């Protein structure tokens, strides 16, 4: 990775970032759009920006995406 790109990532602070609370609020809807093959950034641009910059929310997102993919089809019997 170039020095410039490393710096750009280190200092990532993009306008429109939804922040943690707002992103957590819609995280379920966000991952379902991903599972449906749609672009969640279209409906939730602020969360898409946020997930690029916040390591905590990104880890939660990755966990939820995997859980929904693995266990999403379980139905109430």
């Amino acid at each position, binding site marked *: 990775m170039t*020095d410039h790109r490393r710096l*750009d990532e280190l200092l990532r602070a993009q306008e429109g970032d939804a922040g943690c609370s707002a992103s*957590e609020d819609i995280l379920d809807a966000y991952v379902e759009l991903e599972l449906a093959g749609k672009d969640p950034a279209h409906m939730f641009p602020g969360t898409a920006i946020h997930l690029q910059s*916040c390591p*905590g929310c990104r880890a939660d997102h*990755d966990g939820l995406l995997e859980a*929904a993919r693995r266990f999403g089809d379980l139905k109430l019997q």
Partner: protein
Amino acid sequence: MSVGDAPTPATGSAVDLDSRQWLAQLRTKHPQHEHAVAMLHDMLLRVARHELSRRRAQLRWISGPELDDLAHQSADDALVNVLRRLDEFRGLSRFTTWAYKFAVFEVSSKVARHAWRRQPPDAGELASDRLPDSLAPRPGDRLEQRERLAALAAAIGELTARQRKVFVAIALNDVSIDVLALELGSNRNAIYKNLFDARRNVRAKMAAAGHAVTEQDAIG
């Protein structure tokens, strides 16, 4: 930062059939209530176990039984949250995905608490102004690059004490944002805001010193 994304809630008929069944049967007066609660708990436990295994690297010192106990605690707490918030389900996703979110959040929070108790960030991780090895200037670096890194170090030095502590810990020393929040008696949202402001200020100061990180910074 913005005020967040505003989703459009699904109308009653747009909520899928499975989700509606979950919502109905989880109501305390429904004859299948206990069965539905048991099933939900079983699913939350699966998610919690899976999420804990995904984050296993952060809990290397925890034994198998202790880890399973943590999974049960996470599933129990997630279940309480889901049942308390049933009226908040807006149908933006399947009910199960919405419920799993609480299990993931519980695991996330409990893993951070364990990590913090076991290994809180040391003073060096919060206060060091040394650039990480990947960014520190090397003998062969060009003058321009060395000047840029010097500008970065100077900009970090001009941050407020709080912003500097958060930036140094998370961006330079890879301290977990949740562990830092616990250490500082704060929460993820507030720490992230500190980090965001710190990053923006460092960018602006570097641009003002003639070392814009991107062309956009130079224009702005």
